[in-house]
């Protein structure tokens, strides 16, 4: 059964089309790449799937639920319950320590406090000892791993990763992809990695190639 179903999805930014997907689906538990050059609508599609950006046209079904038929609070709840997101900029909440950042993700997803789940998620990314560290005291690599742990601590059905490797060297690119795949497998989650990084092609075979529809973009949500 598909976890993601997209039907007739179209979106334009400032009059320029950035997204046109007649039909696309991803089966539950599969790992897929969302490939395309900068400005091809990868982030727009990720945001549309997550209920953050309403597309101009089309339907997005997530686990059988029409995301954009829900009201704002309903979309927030569905996102919290089903999706874990890894952002390109990672962005951990600086006022909270590592453990609290993971607790925050569970709380925002409407899940009960579970110190064991948080500790396990950190252990799985090799940061069990950094539970009480503040984000500013972490290396970039550690932040990346905490961001992945935060995305999986809610046991999501779908992990969305937006350009998780574009700023990394080859070695770290491989490590992050391995970690994402491993965590998705452990959680039994569907993994969707949006990237223009050609190095990822060898690791994940399922893919949706997004063409660049407009010659020029303003770089907004694309």
């Amino acid at each position: 059964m598909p976890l993601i179903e997209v039907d007739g999805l179209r979106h334009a930014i400032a009059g320029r089309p950035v997204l046109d997907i007649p039909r696309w689906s991803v089966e539950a538990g599969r790992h897929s790449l969302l490939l395309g050059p900068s400005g091809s609508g990868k982030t727009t599609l990720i945001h549309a799937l997550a209920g953050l950006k309403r597309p101009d046209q089309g339907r997005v079904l997530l686990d059988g639920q029409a995301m954009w038929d829900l009201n704002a609070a309903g979309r927030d709840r569905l996102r919290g319950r089903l999706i874990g997101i890894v952002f390109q900029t990672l962005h951990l909440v600086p006022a909270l320590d590592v453990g609290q950042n993971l607790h925050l993700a569970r709380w925002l997803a409407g899940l009960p406090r579970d110190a064991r789940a948080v500790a396990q998620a950190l252990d799985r990314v090799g940061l069990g000892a950094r539970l009480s560290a503040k984000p500013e005291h972490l290396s970039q690599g550690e932040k990346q791993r905490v961001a992945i742990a935060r995305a999986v601590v809610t046991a999501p059905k779908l992990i969305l990763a937006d350009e998780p490797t574009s700023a990394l060297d080859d070695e770290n690119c491989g490590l992050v992809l391995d970690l994402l795949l491993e965590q998705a497998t452990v959680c039994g989650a569907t993994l969707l990695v949006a990237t223009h990084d050609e190095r990822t092609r060898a690791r994940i075979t399922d893919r949706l190639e997004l063409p660049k529809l407009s010659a020029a973009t303003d770089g907004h949500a694309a």
Partner: protein
Amino acid sequence: MNTLGLAWAYLKRSALTTCLNVALLALGVGTIVVLILVGTQLQDRLAKDAAGVDLVVGAKGSPLQLILSALYQIDIPTGNIPLSQAQALAADPLVAQAVPLALGDSFRGYRIVGTDPAFVALRHAQVAEGRLWQAPMEATVGAQVARAAGLKVGDQFNGNHGLSAGGAVHEGMPYTVVGILAPTGGVVDRLVLTPIDSVWAVHDAHHHHHDGDEHDAHEHQAEGAQPAPEREVTSVLLRYRSPIAAALLPRRINTGSVLQAASPAAEMTRLLSLVGIGTDTVRGFGLLLVASSALSIFVALYNATQARRYDLAVMRALGATRTRISGLLLAEALAMGAAGTALGLVLGHGAVELAGRFVPQARDMGITGLQFPPTEPYLLILAAGLSVLAALVPAIQAYRTDVSAVLSRG
């Protein structure tokens, strides 16, 4: 993790700004609390000390001065009046009760008041130990006088000439303590009560001893020692027999005699309206401080919302509803408001309590910080309301944030 925990984490991260905002609010709230406490207790005290007295009659002069000196014992009297006129007032059919007062001396700064035992009943005082005075040079002392001077029944003391401490001691004419009054929280606690004859006798002896000396008229109120046959008293406290007396008696006294009649109610209203201008100014200043702190909280939250746009967008992406994000900002404002108000209440009550314990004038007035006026909850509501108001614009801003746009910009 919960909204308050998250709010606390953010407040802790900007600890200096948070502390300054809380301190600013606390100063404003504390100022208003002090004014409310002192104002309420002062008015209660003034009303309590004036209770049961419809009219004060004394020598011509300032009516307010007459009331302050005779009723509250905090100003010098306007002069003396002949005893015969005081007796005539007592016999007036419009008068239910007339209690004479003769002032002139003091003991360690506490006034010695020559009067009759009806004064004790008029002031709703009761004897705690011993008895009321009966013979000249016997004294029944107020609770505060006994406590401050360590007086016990049977002790003797000499009065000082004049109403303030430091006057010449009346040697050879000691008073004997025959009773101590129970505390009333009123002016009677600070008085030494004795028969009028005592005052006359002391001053007869004083003038005999200092024959030819010149004295300040205000410091010699109950002049009984002059060779003139007429005795004098300082003032008379009157109770009306019927309401009609209020319309007739003051006017008759003020126009038809050398006496002056002053109504405690009218003079206190005048006094409070005069004092009110000052307290209104300070209260306005307190409100200004509270408003400034609300503005400061607004600026802090507004800046925080700008600085934390990505934080808030990430939280939304993690599943936070818009209401939850707005609630976070409201919680931060309310936490600052609650902390500032609580600190302000502690500061205000603490300052008044300390003043009541260590400032002699405040102690004499019975001022305490351990009283909680019914208007205080409104202060809490005001502070909470202002905090919510301060958070409103940032909360709305956070509510309406385009999460996708913020995340895309990074």
